[in-house]
């Protein structure tokens, strides 16, 4: 299936790899912290590729020295939203960059149905394509449960 390789959505870093272990996540966060990036945690149940704005889980964490605190927060987010997508982002505030520098998924729903490809015939029989998540047919909070 084109849109759902291995029944897993692929967004951000490491998404073609098996899920990262806590030790691997810690190592990644450590890398972000040594670069002076602010790490934040976000979650969503609408993983459409164009949905860039996920819900923030708490504020971005500034001035941290050690990944342990962020891992604690990740685990808490996983506990609160076990069947949501959770991602960790690193934001660089360097002047001229000022954008996310890392983003990877740390939690997925057990069952990821993937996306439907919809074709729409426009003027002159031109085809417009769009993808729709099968999960988003249900209302928010009930998807993936």
């Amino acid at each position, binding site marked *: 299936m084109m849109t759902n390789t291995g029944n897993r959505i692929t967004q951000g870093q490491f998404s073609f790899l098996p899920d990262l272990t806590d030790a691997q996540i810690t190592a990644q966060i450590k890398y972000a912290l040594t670069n002076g990036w602010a790490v934040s945690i976000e979650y969503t149940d609408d993983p459409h590729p164009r949905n860039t704005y996920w819900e923030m889980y708490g*504020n971005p964490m500034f001035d941290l020295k*050690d990944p342990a*605190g962020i891992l604690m927060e990740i685990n808490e987010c996983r506990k609160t939203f076990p069947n949501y997508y959770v991602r960790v982002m690193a934001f660089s505030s360097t002047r001229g960059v000022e954008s996310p520098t890392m983003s990877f998924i740390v939690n997925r729903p057990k069952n990821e149905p993937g996306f439907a490809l919809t074709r729409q015939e426009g003027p002159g029989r031109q085809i417009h394509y769009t993808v729709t998540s099968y999960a988003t047919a249900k209302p928010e909070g009930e998807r993936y449960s």
Partner: protein
Amino acid sequence: MTEPSIDLRAIWNESGVQAVLDALDAELIGLAPVKKRIREIASLLVVDRVRRDMQLAAGAPSLHMSFTGNPGTGKTTVALRMADLLHKLGYSRTGHLVAVTRDDLVGQYIGHTAPKTKEVLKKAMGGVLFIDEAYYLFRPENERDYGQEAIEILLQVMENQRDDLVVILAGYKDRMETFFRSNPGMSSRIAHHIDFPDYKDDELLAIGELILKDWSYQLSPRAQKVFRDYIERRRAQPHFANARSVRNALDRARLRQAHRLLEGGGHIDKAALQTIEAEDILQSRVLAGVRAVADTKAAS
């Protein structure tokens, strides 16, 4: 097969702990019981590490501490050294110290405290969290006080993430004792209670000289005598804060010295720039009585 023998000394030297302890000895005057206790803790940690390497049972040692003592007895300074020490021994990953008070942990309205406390805890992870005047966290007279919430979160993290965080509570001795009595959970999670004694007059003088040396100043012989007198009198006054009072007094003496040098015509040499004279200290409010006596002596 013989058991391999272990050179504890070598491990000790290798860890760089000795350098921290030496610095502690050189830069902190007095505090003999504190230094002894820190040495003991360092020994325990080294032995524990060796035990762990030998696969002997060694549970993660509880490193949370409580520092009690009057103001200005060096609690924060020692905590800073402690962070360094734990880092050198591998019990703290970053060795940084986050110093907070009640204001940083407790919120102002419902639901404000938990995120605030957690944020501080996250900042301190991997290092040492130093809570100054920790007894303010608990206000028994107000049962709706949010301090209790902060204590609960603190306790949970102190218990579950012992590898990630070392908490040091500090405060006056009697009030900390009340605090621990009303929070038995807190008391039982703290392994090391260290009491900081007040400094003696000689020690305060030595501290003063050390501070001045840092600033490239020195006391003239007469100023030394006057300063000793000053310390004695200052101690009897309210709000005496040991080394902090000495530091403040010297700050003011420096001010007066600068003023005196300018007033005195402005032709000076290097030695004059560095020397604090007796009159710089004598002008202090604390020594008002002494000054009056000196004046009458000069007049007669």
